[in-house]
């Protein structure tokens, strides 16, 4: 069999076995009792009042869900232990068996009900629309046609918006990872509205900190937070449901919610909401078009950022090698600063931090952030290449009367380029993949498209393979191009032998 085909098949088999339900995780309740410990997954990035680090005693984690899980564990006769996971990967991690249950603002959506068991609710929330006070005409989700709307990824709010507005031509939906950013962008005019749970809207949106924002007083929809349990553990669901019912009956749940100022009339209403089952998405032409568009965004970001990084790097390298002491120091400071801090942080600073001074669009901020960051790496590549050129080359050029700039342009840089080309190809391919980081500033590129599609399709295999294929289609021809260029530039080289 063709080796390449065998490799592809191997990947398919591996992906398929990861995609289904993790087998053999039944009997969790018995094991919890045996261990004397109930482990639950959550993400402190979810922020107050869910699960967050106590500002007064930082490493300690507090929140209304911490209290609820403490009560649940106590009533089961065991200790609770919270396990930190990224919110977006809570469900797959539960399925993998990394912890016993999920308790972190998990909404009872139809998709989740298909995939895992959901307990009875412990909280009823209202989807709340937040707008700027200068846009009084926006009063309901139906007014958002053609608008830009922010929300969090993998939420009920996202589902509602997507059911009303099928794609970006009807309404642009920007997905965020944190609670603060959707409202920051709304205030800056980068979006027109934000749809999120009332807990989030009241604490992060229409607060005194954002005087220009207001929450529309009509509820868009109601939803519930539930505890997520593996499909194979119905006896655990039964036990937890019984505990929650008891907590509701004897007032402990009310006490906890009151302590966190979360108690309202909604909590008294019927808490059983099955939701509607949305058909999971299939691989169709539209999905491929979306992936192609995302690939185009990735390619565009990468090329533009690299076109910025090369001159920045060349300038820094020349400054570091030939500059006077203060110029050298400044170049070195730049390099250490941009190379020594995460590009993710730099993107945040550019997009959110600088927003009060200069409000960059997400693509501009992404190109600028990646370009300035990679410029620091390019600088060191070029510096190494310049230092590798024998001193005699500079002397010969100067002895012919060439000035400093001419020596650089006609003698040193052409030779440095040849030396720098292999590491530059490396950096370009690396940048192609690092460009996925810009999803944190709401740019939907290839990797983000994959995670969105994986939620819509309820599986990672097809989006994952599609995404990998597109990255390869972008990177392999590029390496080939670099290889040819290298061969052309190597005309002046004796072939290497050992």
């Amino acid at each position: 069999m063709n080796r390449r085909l065998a490799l592809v098949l191997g990947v398919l088999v591996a992906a398929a076995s990861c995609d289904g339900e993790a087998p053999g995780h039944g009997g969790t309740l018995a094991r919890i009792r045996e261990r004397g410990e109930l482990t639950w997954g959550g993400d402190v990035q979810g922020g107050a009042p869910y699960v967050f680090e106590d500002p007064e005693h930082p490493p300690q984690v507090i929140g209304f869900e911490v209290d609820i899980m403490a009560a649940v564990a106590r009533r089961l006769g065991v200790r609770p232990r919270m396990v930190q996971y990224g919110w977006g990967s809570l469900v797959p991690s539960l399925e993998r068996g990394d912890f016993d249950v999920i308790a972190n603002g998990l909404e009872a959506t139809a998709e989740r009900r298909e995939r895992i068991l959901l307990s009875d609710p412990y909280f009823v929330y209202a989807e709340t629309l937040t707008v700027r006070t200068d846009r009084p005409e926006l009063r309901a989700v139906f007014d958002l046609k053609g608008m830009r709307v922010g929300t969090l990824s993998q939420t009920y709010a996202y589902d509602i918006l997507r059911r009303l507005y099928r794609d970006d031509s009807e309404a642009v939906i920007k997905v965020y990872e944190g609670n603060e950013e959707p409202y920051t962008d709304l205030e800056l005019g980068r979006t027109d509205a934000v749809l999120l749970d009332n807990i989030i809207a009241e604490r992060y949106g229409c607060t005194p900190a954002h005087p220009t924002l207001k929450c529309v007083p009509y509820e868009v929809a109601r939803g519930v937070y539930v505890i997520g349990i593996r499909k194979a553990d119905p006896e655990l669901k039964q036990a937890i449901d019984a505990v929650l019912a008891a907590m509701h009956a004897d007032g402990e749940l009310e006490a906890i919610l009151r302590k966190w100022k979360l108690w309202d009339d909604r909590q008294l209403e019927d808490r059983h909401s099955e939701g509607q089952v949305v058909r999971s998405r299939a691989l169709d032409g539209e999905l491929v078009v979306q992936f192609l568009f995302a690939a185009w965004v990735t390619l565009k970001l990468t090329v533009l950022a690299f076109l910025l990084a090369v001159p920045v790097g060349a300038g820094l390298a020349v400054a570091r090698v030939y500059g006077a002491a203060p110029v050298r120091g400044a170049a070195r400071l730049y390099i250490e600063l941009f190379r020594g801090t995460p590009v993710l942080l730099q993107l945040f600073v550019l997009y959110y931090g600088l927003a009060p001074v200069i409000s960059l669009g997400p693509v501009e901020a992404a190109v600028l952030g990646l370009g300035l960051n990679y410029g620091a790496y390019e600088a060191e590549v070029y510096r190494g290449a310049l230092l590798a050129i024998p001193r005699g080359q500079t002397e010969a050029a100067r002895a012919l009367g060439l000035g400093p700039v001419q020596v650089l342009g006609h003698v040193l840089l052409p030779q440095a380029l040849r030396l720098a080309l292999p590491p530059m190809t490396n950096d370009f391919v690396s940048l192609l993949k690092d460009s996925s980081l810009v999803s944190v500033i709401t740019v939907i590129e290839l990797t983000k498209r994959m995670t969105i599609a994986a939620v819509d399709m309820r599986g990672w295999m097809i989006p994952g393979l599609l995404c990998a294929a597109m990255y390869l289609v972008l990177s392999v021809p590029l390496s080939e191009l670099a290889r040819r260029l290298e061969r052309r530039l190597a005309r002046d080289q004796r072939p290497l032998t050992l």
Partner: protein
Amino acid sequence: MISVRSLCKRHGDREILVGVTTQVGKGETIAIVGPSGGGKSTLLRCLNYLERFEAGEIEIAGVTLRPELANSDPVLRTLRTRVGMVFQQFNLFPHLSALDNVALAPRVVKRVSATAAESRARELLAQVGLADRAAAFPHELSGGQQQRVAIARALAQDPDVMLFDEPTSALDPEMRDDVMEVIRSLARGGMTMLVVTHEMQFAHDIASRVWVIDRGTIAEDGPPTEVVDRPQTAVAREFFGRLRRASP
């Protein structure tokens, strides 16, 4: 053509040149010899300011050199179009063909048109016997051929003075003769030249004057018939004696 006055050069606290004073007339060919480490190459490199010096003054081809000129000083540009230099290691530009190596400086420094620079470069390559290797890259040429391209490259600026820093030391003996022949014909054509060399035959036959440089000064200075055949100083006697024993 050249006048050097009280030239002093040091590396840290080591003195390389100790108050060198001398003159060279137009059309003279000076062979510079002496034990290694004596300051021969340093003196040569000071003459086109590749090496800075601490004190003294040099007048060369109508340009006056003093300590502390900036690298970008326009005087240096003038100096280097009037003084050509050939290095022991050739230092051809590896990314350019022989023709482009020769044509680069006239085009870039003197802003000669590309076609004019190229036709002049072809003439010069023919002059050094390499008319047929114009398109070759340096790595495709033998050491002797590379050094002849380097001479053509230096000549392309139409210099008044040529400096050679051990032009044949990196070459196999059979290639030295080709390079020496080119230098010899330049001497016959009346070029003012200073050649740092270990070639006795060359010093004897071609040079109009021979300098023996030792410990940073010109220990002996005179026509080869005097300096080579009847050296006065101990250092010169010992130096030539060793060379004669090495090449009988």
